[in-house]
C-alpha cells in the first residue's frame, strides 16, 4: 500500500515550529484533501445526536400520530395515559404557548393537529416519558376519536377535485399553439415521476437542553439551524435569542432535514421547557419514513413540436406536483422544475404552466435537485421519444437542440446562457466514452442475443445555481484566531457528509496561508453565525466559502502591519506582505519569512483584534414570478453521462454495465470531495429512476415504510465500470476560487440510464414502436414496456 500522500485536515497536531517548515504544497486549495471527519468516522468516535451522552434526567419522546389520511378529531382524552408510571407529560396543541405551526414559508402546517388530521402519520401530540417503554404504554392509552373524511391520495384525484396548494405559475414565449400547429412532427403525452424517500442513514433527531433565563439549546440533525431556531422560537413564543441550535453533524440530509427537522425539534424544545429537563426525540426508521415528506411526485402533460430534422420548435407543458397536505417548500420546488424543463435545450416557443396539488399525504419536501430532476425527466423523455419517432440518433438530436449563439441563448425565463460548457463537454465525453463504436457493438449484440438487449445513451445536465428565492443567497462566517496561530472556523453551512467543512477549511487555510491542520471547523451553531440560509440548493460552498474568504481577508489586513513591523518593512508596503505555507513574508523577499504563529502572537501583544466576520451575497440575481422573467441563477453547472445497460427480456431486470461521466465543477476546490459528490449523486438518481418506489395504498397508508419494502441502491446496483472525470481548465468567473456547485447536478446524470433502458426496450420490438416506459424503471415497468413493443 502506497504511503498516504494526502493531507488530513485534522491529522497533524498544530505546531507553530513545524508549520514554519511547511513549504509544499503552498496551498491546500484545488488539491486532493481527505474528509475532515475521516479519522473520526473510521475510528467510530464521530458523534451524531443520538450518540451524545444522555444528560441526567433526560426524557424521551414518542409522537402520537393520526391513523387516518383525513379525518375530524371528535374527542381526545389522555387522562389514563398520563397516569402511566414514568410518563412526564403528554402534550397537545393547547400546550403550545406560541404559534402551533411549523410551516417554513406559509403557516399551513400545525405542529399538533387541532380539529382535523390531514395525513396518516400526522402528529396529534407527543408523549414524553423516562423510557420508550413508558412512552409506548402511554401512547396505547391515549384516546382519540376520529370521524373519517374523504381523502385525496393521488395527483389525478387532486386535479379532478381542484385541490391546490398554489396558483398556476406560467412561463411563456411566442405563440406556442401556432408553432405547434405548424410543426412537422407533433408529439403529446404525459410523463410521471415518482416520489423518493431520502433514506438518510441517520433518522431525524434532536436533543433539547433547557438552560438559564428560559432559554433552550438544541443539538439537532438539521440542514437549516436558523429556521429551526425561528420556528422553535415562535412555537415557544420567545425571542430567537433564547434559542440556540447547534448541528454536531448529520448522517445524511439530501434535503430531508431542510424544513422537516423543525417539527421534531419543536416538540423536544416544548417538552424541555415545560418539564425543565433535557428531552431527546429520535425517530426510528419506520416512524421517520411515515411521518416525513419525500421527493415530490410529478405528472406532466406535454405537447411538443419538432421539425423532421430533429429541431424542437415548440413545447407546451402542464406540470402538476404532489405537495402533500401542506405547502412546505412545494412552490419553490415546482418553480425549479419549471426552470429545468428546458434542461440544456433551446425552446423557441413555449408555454409552461405549473401547479402544486394538495393531497392527504405527508408534506413533500426538498430532495437533492429540488424539482430540477422532475423537470428534466420530462424533456429527456420527450427527446428520447422524438429520436425514436424520427428515427434519428438520440445523441445527435439532443446536440442539435443545445443552447447556442444568440438568439438561441435565452432560457424560457429570459435569462441569457453564458459560459455554456455543454458543446465542449458533450464532444469530449462522446470521444472519451467511445460512444459511436460501442453503439454499433451493441447493435450486433442485440441482433444475436436470444433474450437480452443492451442500450446506450448520453444525456446532458444544465443546472441553475442559486436559491431561486433571491434573498436567501447570503452567508456569513466567523473566523477566530488565537495567539498561537491556530484558528477556529465558523460558517453558516452544515456538514451532512458532503465535505463542506473540508472545503471551508481549505479556503480558510489558503487565505491565511496556513496548513489545514491549524484550522478547526466548528459545529454549525446559530450563536456563531446568525440568520443563515439552509445548506441546500448546492450553494453551501459558493456562499459560505465566499464569506469565509472575506473574514480571512479582514484578518490578513490586520496582520499585515504587524508583520511589516516584525520584518522591518515600511508600513506603506504592508499590503505586499503574503501569507503562504505557514509563513508570512514580503512578496519580494520570501527568504525573510516569519512563522504565522509568531505574527499572531505579536498581533495579540499589540492589541490587534483577532476575530472577524465575513459576509457574502450573490450579486445580480432576481426573478419576477408574475411575468415569468428574470435571472434567477448566478450561473449554470454542466455535466453529461453515457450509460450502458443490459436488460433481460425474461425478467425485466437490468444491470448498469458501464457509466462515463464528465462533470463541470469549475476549478474544483477539493477534487476528492467533488468526485464523491458526483458518484454518490449519480447513484442516488439511479435509485430514484430505477429501484426506489414510494407506494401508498388508496387509504393513504405508506406501504414502503422501511428498507424491507423500499429498496435504495446497494452494492450490486452500482455500475460495473464507473468512469468519472471532472472537466479540466474550467474555472468559473465570479465564484469562489473559480469553483462550481456540485451537490445536486450529478443526480440528474442518472437520466442517461433511463434513456439507455429505452434504447434497450426498443431493441425488443420493431423500429419506431412506441415505448411506454414508466419511471421508476422497475423490472415490472420494464417488462410491461418490453411486452408493449413486442406486441406492436
Amino acid at each position, binding site marked *: 500500500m502506497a504511503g498516504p500522500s494526502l493531507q488530513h485536515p485534522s491529522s497533524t497536531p498544530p505546531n507553530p515550529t513545524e508549520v514554519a517548515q511547511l513549504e509544499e504544497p503552498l496551498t491546500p486549495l484545488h488539491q486532493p484533501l481527505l474528509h475532515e471527519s475521516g479519522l473520526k468516522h473510521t475510528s467510530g468516535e464521530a458523534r451524531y445526536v443520538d450518540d451524545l451522552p444522555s444528560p441526567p434526567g433526560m426524557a424521551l419522546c414518542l409522537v402520537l400520530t393520526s391513523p387516518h389520511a383525513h379525518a375530524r378529531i371528535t374527542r381526545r382524552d389522555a387522562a389514563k395515559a398520563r397516569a402511566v408510571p414514568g410518563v412526564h407529560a403528554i402534550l397537545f396543541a393547547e400546550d403550545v404557548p406560541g404559534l402551533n405551526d411549523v410551516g417554513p414559508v406559509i403557516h399551513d402546517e400545525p405542529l399538533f393537529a387541532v380539529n382535523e388530521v390531514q395525513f396518516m402519520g400526522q402528529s396529534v401530540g407527543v408523549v414524553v416519558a423516562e423510557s420508550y417503554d413508558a412512552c409506548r404504554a402511554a401512547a396505547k392509552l391515549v384516546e382519540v376519536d376520529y370521524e373519517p373524511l374523504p381523502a385525496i391520495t393521488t395527483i389525478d384525484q387532486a386535479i379532478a377535485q381542484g385541490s391546490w396548494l398554489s396558483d398556476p405559475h406560467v412561463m411563456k414565449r411566442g405563440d406556442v399553439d401556432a408553432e405547434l400547429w405548424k410543426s412537422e412532427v407533433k408529439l403529446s403525452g404525459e410523463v410521471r415521476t415518482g416520489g423518493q424517500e431520502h433514506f438518510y442513514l441517520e433518522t431525524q433527531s434532536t436533543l433539547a437542553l433547557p438552560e438559564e433565563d428560559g432559554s433552550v439549546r438544541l443539538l439537532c440533525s438539521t440542514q437549516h439551524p436558523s429556521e429551526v431556531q425561528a420556528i422553535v422560537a415562535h412555537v415557544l413564543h420567545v425571542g430567537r435569542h433564547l434559542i440556540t441550535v447547534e448541528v454536531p453533524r448529520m448522517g445524511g440530509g439530501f434535503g430531508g432535514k431542510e424544513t422537516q427537522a423543525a417539527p421534531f425539534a419543536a416538540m423536544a424544545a416544548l417538552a424541555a421547557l415545560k418539564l425543565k429537563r433535557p428531552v431527546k426525540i429520535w425517530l426510528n426508521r419506520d416512524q421517520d419514513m411515515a411521518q416525513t415528506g419525500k421527493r415530490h411526485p410529478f405528472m406532466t402533460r406535454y405537447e411538443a413540436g419538432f421539425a423532421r430534422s430533429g429541431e424542437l420548435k415548440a413545447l407546451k407543458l402542464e406540470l402538476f406536483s404532489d405537495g402533500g397536505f401542506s405547502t412546505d417548500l412545494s412552490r419553490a420546488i415546482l418553480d425549479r422544475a419549471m426552470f429545468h424543463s428546458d434542461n440544456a435545450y433551446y425552446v423557441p416557443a413555449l408555454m409552461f404552466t405549473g401547479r402544486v396539488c394538495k393531497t392527504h399525504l405527508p408534506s413533500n419536501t426538498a430532495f437533492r435537485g429540488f424539482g430540477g430532476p422532475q423537470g428534466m425527466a420530462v424533456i429527456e423523455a420527450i427527446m428520447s421519444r422524438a429520436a425514436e419517432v424520427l428515427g434519428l440518433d438520440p445523441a445527435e438530436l439532443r446536440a442539435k437542440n443545445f443552447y447556442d449563439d444568440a438568439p438561441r441563448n435565452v432560457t424560457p425565463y429570459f435569462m441569457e446562457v453564458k459560459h455554456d460548457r455543454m458543446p465542449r463537454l458533450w464532444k469530449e465525453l462522446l470521444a472519451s466514452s467511445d460512444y459511436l463504436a460501442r453503439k454499433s457493438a451493441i447493435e450486433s449484440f442485440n441482433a444475436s442475443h436470444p433474450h437480452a438487449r443492451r442500450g446506450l445513451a448520453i444525456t446532458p445536465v444544465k443546472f441553475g445555481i442559486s436559491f431561486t428565492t433571491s434573498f436567501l443567497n447570503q452567508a456569513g462566517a466567523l473566523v477566530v484566531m488565537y495567539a498561537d496561530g491556530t484558528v477556529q472556523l465558523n460558517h453558516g453551512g452544515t456538514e451532512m457528509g458532503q465535505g463542506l467543512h473540508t472545503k471551508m477549511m481549505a479556503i480558510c487555510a489558503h487565505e491565511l496561508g496556513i496548513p489545514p491542520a491549524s484550522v478547526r471547523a466548528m459545529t454549525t451553531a446559530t450563536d456563531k453565525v446568525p440568520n443563515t440560509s439552509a445548506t441546500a440548493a448546492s450553494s453551501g460552498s459558493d456562499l459560505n466559502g465566499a464569506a469565509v474568504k472575506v473574514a480571512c481577508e479582514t484578518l490578513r489586513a490586520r496582520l499585515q502591519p504587524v508583520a511589516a513591523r516584525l520584518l522591518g518593512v515600511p508600513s506603506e508596503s504592508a499590503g505586499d506582505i503574503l501569507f503562504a505555507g505557514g509563513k508570512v513574508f514580503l512578496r519580494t523577499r520570501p527568504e525573510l519569512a516569519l512563522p504565522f504563529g509568531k505574527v499572531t502572537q505579536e498581533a495579540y501583544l499589540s492589541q490587534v483584534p483577532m476575530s472577524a466576520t465575513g459576509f457574502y451575497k450573490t450579486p445580480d440575481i432576481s426573478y419576477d414570478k408574475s411575468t415569468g422573467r428574470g435571472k434567477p441563477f448566478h450561473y449554470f453547472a454542466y455535466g453529461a453521462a453515457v450509460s450502458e445497460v443490459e436488460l433481460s427480456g425474461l425478467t425485466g431486470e437490468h444491470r448498469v454495465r458501464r457509466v462515463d461521466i464528465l462533470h463541470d465543477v469549475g476549478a474544483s476546490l477539493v477534487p476528492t470531495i467533488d468526485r464523491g459528490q458526483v458518484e454518490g449523486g449519480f447513484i442516488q438518481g439511479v435509485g430514484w429512476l430505477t429501484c426506489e418506489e414510494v407506494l401508498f395504498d388508496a387509504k393513504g397508508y405508506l406501504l414502503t415504510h422501511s*428498507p424491507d419494502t423500499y429498496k435504495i441502491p446497494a452494492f450490486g446496483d452500482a455500475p460495473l465500470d464507473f468512469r468519472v472525470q471532472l472537466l479540466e481548465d474550467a474555472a468559473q468567473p465570479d465564484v469562489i476560487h473559480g469553483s462550481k456547485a456540485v451537490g445536486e447536478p450529478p443526480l440528474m446524470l442518472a437520466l442517461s440510464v433511463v434513456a439507455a433502458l429505452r434504447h434497450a426496450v426498443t431493441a425488443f420490438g420493431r423500429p419506431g414502436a412506441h415505448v411506454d416506459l414508466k419511471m421508476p424503471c422497475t423490472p415490472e415497468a420494464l417488462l410491461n414496456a418490453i411486452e408493449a413493443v413486442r406486441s406492436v
Partner: protein
Amino acid sequence: MARPARELIRFEVNGDWHELAVEPRTTLLEALRYVLKLTGSKQGCDKGDCGACTVLIDGRPQLSCISLAMTAVGRKITTIEGLAEGNRAHPVQDAFDLCGALQCGFCQSGMMLSAAALLADNPRPNRDEIKQALSGNLCRCTGYTQIVDAVEVASGQRDVPERDERPTTRRK
C-alpha cells in the same frame, strides 16, 4: 412500569470482559450503545436491512439490532471502537479514509467491520467477492465504488488512488 426481570450476562467486547444486566428482549445493539456507551455501532433501520449495526461476534459479521444481547453470552464481540489494535489502525480504517470511501459516516462502522471480516477470511478478494460480502450494508452517500476501491487498497491489491490523475489546478 413493571419491567421484565433482568439477567446478569458476561461477554467480551473489544478485548475487555463486561458484566451487565439486561432484559431478555434487550438487543445486542441496545446493550452496546446504551449500556456500554459504545455508540460507534448505529441503528439505521432496526430490522436487519441496512447493516449500520454490524459488529463481529467471534469474528463473524452479525447484525446487532436483530441479535439479542443474551445470545452473545461468553462470546467475543468486536465493534468499530475495537477494530484498531492499540494505536495501529486496521488497514480497512486507513483505506476507507484515504480512498474517500466515506461521506456522512453513518454506515461506516458496519461497512468496515464487514470488510474486516471478509479480509480475515479472504485476504485478496476480487471485486465481486467484495460486493457480495458487503451487500448487506447500505450506503446512501458514496455510490459504493470508492468503498470497493478501499477494500482493494486495504487488501494490498490497489494503491491509494493516484490523485494526480484528477484535475488539480495550482494556485494562480
